[in-house]
Structures are given as C-alpha cells and as structure tokens.
C-alpha cells in the first residue's frame, strides 16, 4: 500500500507540474495573442498611447455601450472615449479615478451618459466588475471588487492572473471573427437593425432593462455621485449626455409606463447638488423625425438603443457643434 501511495504521489506531482507548465504557456499565449485583440484591451492600449503623448484631455466620454458606440472622438479635439459595454457608474468611477489620480491626466470636460436605463438594477447583472477581473483588478482595490461582485478574493486574484480561465469561447471568436474597428476608444459597428425584427427586439430589450428591475439602484446612484464629486474636486465641467434611441424604443417605454420626467429631475438634482453648474446634451429623439434623414432612421442603429457607425458619425458631429455653441471648447 505504501508503495502504491508513493507511486501515486510521484505520478501526481509529475502530472501536476506538466499541467502547470502547459497552463502557464496557454495563459501567456492567450494574453499575448488573444486578449490583446479584445476591445477592452485595445481601448486600454490606445489610452496608454494617448497619455504617453498628452497630459491633458479636453473631452472624456464615460458611459456604457451607448456612449462607447456613439461618440467618435475624431470629431472632438483632444478627446478619448473611455466608455465600454456594460460599464456602470462604478466601473466609470474607477476608470476616472485612475486617469485623474494615478495617471495624472487633466480632464477639462466630462461627457457622462445618463440614459433611461443607466440607473436600472438591470445594469448590475452583467457588470464588468463582476467578471472582468483581469482588467479591473489591476487598478480597483480587491476589497471594492469583492464588495461589488460578491466574488472571493481568491477568485478575483486567480482570474486576474490567469484570464484564460473560461475564455475558450472568446478565443474562438477572436480567432475566427473579424475584430470590430475601434478609434480612440470608440467602437465602430457596421451592423444594421433594419434587417431584423425591430418590434420584437425592442420589446425584449425594454423589458430586459425595466421589467421587474429597480428603476434607480442605490449602488449606481452612489457611484454616480462619487463621479460628480470627483469632477468637482478636479474642476472638470460635467456634461450629461442622453444618447439616441429608436422611436419604437420610446413607444415601448411609454406603453410600459416608464416615466422620464421624475427620473431626470432626480438625476439632474443630484448633479446640481454635487457639481453646481452642469450641462445637458439631449439626443434621445435625434433620429425620431424620419424627414431629416437620407436613410430610414433604423439604418442608423445596430439595435433599438445603440447607434451604429453611420449614426455615430452624425451624432458626433452634432455633439461637436453643440459643444461649440455652448462655448464648451
């Protein structure tokens, strides 16, 4: 029995050592050749290049995929789009904090997304802080990630060190799919909702965002206020931005009695309380009036509440003009 045990332990150790060596190689290959193609990693690399050359950023865009897909920084001088898919105010807060305090970048104007769904508890479901540990653990305190995600410190650290875990699907996608275009953090999507079942998709989207969800989630409010306070501390002018949606999206919202006025009154009151003067750029209904546009308005969207590259370029130009008009240059 003793011999059997020793043989088992010896074989086990050799097997584990081979496994560890292979795992390290695969993890390295993933970081080097796959993760670098990931949108978040590419945005990070672009940001590093940006801050290498400049110590000041005139316009910083923060938000989730609405902002990420909507504002092309090429239309705004010295700007960067740091928004990203599924980012809540929590992720945006930590990104801003790093930029201002760790990377010592001076920001003049902050374009902060405040859309209808931005404070819905739905946003807490796919929060990157709950799963993208490989990225966030490098600049967010593990304690904060633990509190938000509920993950153990062990899980956070393991996933930070070994991002390859559970990423086989991403590897296949990155290997076989064409990566999306990204410029200064802006994700350019060419897909078009017009060919799809718009009504059905819109109902599903709105229901997902609002049905059975808390309209204003306390955690998201907490981080929204933190962003505002940080902006005031660093003398950053806050510009709250409402991004465009399809008209059908608005109709479904109305059918579901999702109110806008009281919601925005509350959001603006918080902005007023914490930063004093702030600006609002409201593009919610930018594409509602078909007669203004060359194509069908849905041609400007990749889904009911995300503009595609075509829509983003129109919007970005408008943002640029509106900022000039308001003297925010």
């Amino acid at each position, binding site marked *: 029995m003793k011999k059997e045990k020793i043989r088992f332990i010896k074989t086990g150790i050799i097997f584990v050592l081979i496994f560890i060596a292979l795992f390290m190689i695969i993890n390295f290959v993933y970081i080097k050749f796959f993760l670098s193609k990931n949108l978040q990693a590419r945005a990070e690399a672009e940001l590093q290049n940006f801050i290498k050359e400049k110590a000041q950023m005139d316009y910083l865009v923060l938000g989730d995929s609405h902002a990420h897909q909507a504002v092309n920084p090429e239309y705004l001088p010295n700007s960067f789009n740091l928004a990203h898919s599924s980012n809540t105010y929590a992720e945006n807060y930590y990104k801003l904090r790093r930029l201002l305090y760790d990377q010592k970048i001076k920001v003049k104007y902050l374009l902060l997304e405040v859309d209808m769904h931005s404070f819905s508890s739905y946003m807490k479901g796919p929060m990157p802080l709950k799963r993208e540990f490989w990225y966030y653990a490098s600049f967010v305190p593990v304690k904060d990630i633990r509190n938000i995600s509920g993950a153990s410190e062990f899980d956070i650290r393991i996933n930070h060190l070994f991002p390859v*875990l559970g990423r086989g699907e991403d590897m296949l*996608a990155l290997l076989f799919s064409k990566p999306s275009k990204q410029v200064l953090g802006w994700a350019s999507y060419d897909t078009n909702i017009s060919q799809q079942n718009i009504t059905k998709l819109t109902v599903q989207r709105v229901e997902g965002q609002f049905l059975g969800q808390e309209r204003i989630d306390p955690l998201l409010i907490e981080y929204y206020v933190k962003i505002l306070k940080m902006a005031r501390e660093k003398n950053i002018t806050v510009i709250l931005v409402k991004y465009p949606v399809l008209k059908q999206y608005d109709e479904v919202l109305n059918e579901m009695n999702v109110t806008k006025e009281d919601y925005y009154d509350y959001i603006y009151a918080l902005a007023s309380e914490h930063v004093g003067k702030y600006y609002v750029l409201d593009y919610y209904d930018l594409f509602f009036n078909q007669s203004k546009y060359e194509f069908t308005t849905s041609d400007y969207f990749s889904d009911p509440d995300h503009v595609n590259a075509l829509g983003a370029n129109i919007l970005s130009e408008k943002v640029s003009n509106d900022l000039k008009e308001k003297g925010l240059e």
Partner: protein
Amino acid sequence: MLFNSISFLIFLPVVVLLYFSIPHKYRWIILLVSSYYFYMSWKPEFIILIIISTIVDYGASHNIVRSKSKPKRIFFLCFSLLSNFALLFSFKYFNFFNNALGDFLRLISIPWDPVVLSVILPVGISFYTFQTVGYTIDVYRGVIKPERHFGIFAVYVSFFPQLVAGPIERAKNLLPQFYEKHKFSYTQAADGIKLMLWGFFKKIVVADRLAVVVNAVYNNTQNYTGIPLILATVFFAFQIYCDFSGYCDIAIGAAQVMGFRLMDNFKRPYFSRSISEFWKRWHISLSTWFRDYLYISIGGNRVSIPRWYLNIFIVFVVSGLWHGANWTFVIWGALHGFYMMFGALTQKVRDFIAEKIGLVKLPKLRTIIQVIIVFILADIGWVFFRANNVSDAVYVLTHIFPLSLNFSGVYFGAMTRWGLIVAFAAIIFMESIHFMQEHFRMRQFLSNKPVVLRWTIYLALIFIILLFGVFNETPFIYFQF
C-alpha cells in the same frame, strides 16, 4: 459545499489523506466528521435534521427486530416512516398542500387564509430521507439486519459523496463497505479521479453553458415562439442530464478514490427505445427505490390489469412530487405515468404496425425511430419540469408551431454564436464518449495505451474544462430536490 467549488477540491484530498493515514477502526470517524462538515458548510443548523433521521431510524430498526409481535414491528416501522416523512413534509410540501387546499376551498366558496411557513428547503433532504426510509423497510422485511454500530450507521446516512443528491444507496450495498478494510489502490484512485474529471466536464462545460440559453428562454417564455422554444427544451434535456449525471460521476469518483463503490445512476438515457427503458437508465437509484418500496408495496403487477395501470400511475405521480412541491412536477410525473400506461396498452398494436410496414426487418432503423420518439416524449415532459409554472409550460407547448428559421431578434441570454457552437460540440463530444465507453470500454482501452497518449488525453480534457467551463459555481439542479 459544492463539488464544483475550490473548497471541495481542497476538502477531498484532505479527507482522502486522513482516511488512508489512520487505522481502519477509526476511519468511520473521519468519514462522519467530514460528511457533517461537508453538509454544515451550507447551513450548519440543518445538520440537526440528519441527526434526527439517524437516531430515529437507528432506534426504529433495532426495535423492529427486537419486537416479537407483528403490530409492534409495524408500529416501529410506521414511527420511522412518519417521523422521516413529517420532516420532509414540513420543509418541502407544507406550503404546497396548504395552498392547494386553500385553492380548493375557495373554489367551493369557503374562505381560507393559508398559513405560509417561511422555511428554506434543506439541501438533500429528499435523498437522505429516502435512503434511511429504505434502510428501515429493508430491516422490517428482513432483507438486512439492523446496523449495530451507531457511528457507522450515521456515516451511512450522511456519507458526503452521495449525501445531497444521491445516488440513493441501499443499505445492503453501502453499509458493509464501511467495514471493508480499504487499501489505497493506485488504479482505483486514478479511475476515481478520471470519473470525477468527466463529471466536471459534464457539469461545468455542458450543463452550466446550456443553462444560459435555457434560463433566458424559460424565464421569459412569452417572448419566444417556434425553434427557440424547441432549442431551449432540447438544451434543458441535456442540461439536466449533464448536471445530474455529472454530479453522480463526481460522487461515484470521489467515493471510488477512497475505495467505495456507489451504484450507477445513469446509462445513456437518451438512447432508450421506450419510456420504460428510459426509466431503467435515468436516475436508476430513485426508479429502483420506487419500484422496491412503493410499486411492490401497492401490489406491483400482481393485480388486475386496471389496478396495475393505476399502480404505475401512482408511482409516477409520487415520483413527480418527490422532485418538487409544484404542480409542474406532478404533471411531469403523471405524464410519464401516462406514457408507461399507453406504452403497455399499445405494445401489441405497435408491434403489429412495425411488422406490417416492414420495420421489423430493419431493426436499426426501428431503433433510431424509437429513440427519437422517446427523446421527444421525454422533452415534452421536461417542458413541465423546467417551466416556472403550468401556464408557462402550456405556453411553450402551444407556441412551438409554426416553426420559423428567422432567429433575428432572438435573445439567448449572454450566449454568443461561438457559445452555441461550443454547446453543440460539447453535447456531441459527450455522447460520443459515452457511446465509446459503452461499446469499447474506453477507460480500460485507454489504460493499455502509452502514458504519453493517456496523459495527453487527460490534459486535453482538463484544458477543455478550464477554457470552456462556465465558472460561476452554479449549484446542481437536483440539490433543490
């Protein structure tokens, strides 16, 4: 403690190490302490229920044997049954029956305000209750002698690999194994680990991946029609199979590392040619439990034909109820009872048709047709099993047609196109391995191959799990039962 958690991956080697490090006569202590720890890492207070079951059945079984008169023996048997089922009823069924009674009374215009017990269901209560009840009935029937050693009996009730989701072991099979002087065996330990690895693959790569689509569709059924409903139902069929059989593989493998042999619970059920065969291949330990302790007790097939059909129906309805206190489970059980009755009633007609159309001469084609039909019937049952309520299940069944191949706008949760491809590939891979294991005895076949080839295969499986696994420590579905 979940099998698919880091804590279990630390817990098991520690227990195995301690188990083989101490003299045989003290090993039951290690098993008991580790089993109680395993259970208490979830909700410590619920260990009291296991202790109550242990004391009641230990006492009842000895009193049954000691009693000279039949009424006394029956009394102690009933005492054991009532005590165990009272606990099960209070935690699992009280609210269900109370609400059902309330609904019925309201229907006949009698006002009733049901009292709602706000308790959570203790993990594994249905499993260990059935295991201990089976033991007492076996003692009453004289199949086994009552266990003298209280500590070993307590280990039998709480043995951690199979405590929370089976297999529901028979005392005749498991109890004597605690007296066997297990020696550490390289082959046995390696085989156990391989089986566990396979279980992890089924759970983490297949079941938890399919769950993304299943949950997205079944939690919002009204948003879907046609093929997405079929896809989600077929995915659920494989999800529940991989979830539960994956758990059983891990349980059997973990026990095997220590030298214990637990019974097989699954034998490729989706390759059954009839519903009765399905039940010989699906959750075998529960099916045989119902056969031995309920079906036979109510007369089995040694009764008139109508009564026999009724017996079958009763067993399946109770089996449905065993799974959960919800009408969906009752209907699921009743549906399978109906399948069984219909199968028995139409056996001759079906054989006649098969002969007339020449299917008898084409046995392979006949088998394929039978397997497909059984899979479809099982899937209809799964609709009720998975649906959140009866109206959702009815919606699914009535909105499958017309079939449309237009998937635009269909939301499958966080599942990407590549995720779907991986899901299909994983199902095909798993069933191919099962097929090879059944026909070529894969594990034995592999054990004769050079170490480089074997290790390459094992490492490949580990990396598939690590790369394609869904690591969110999703509890096993059968834990809720």
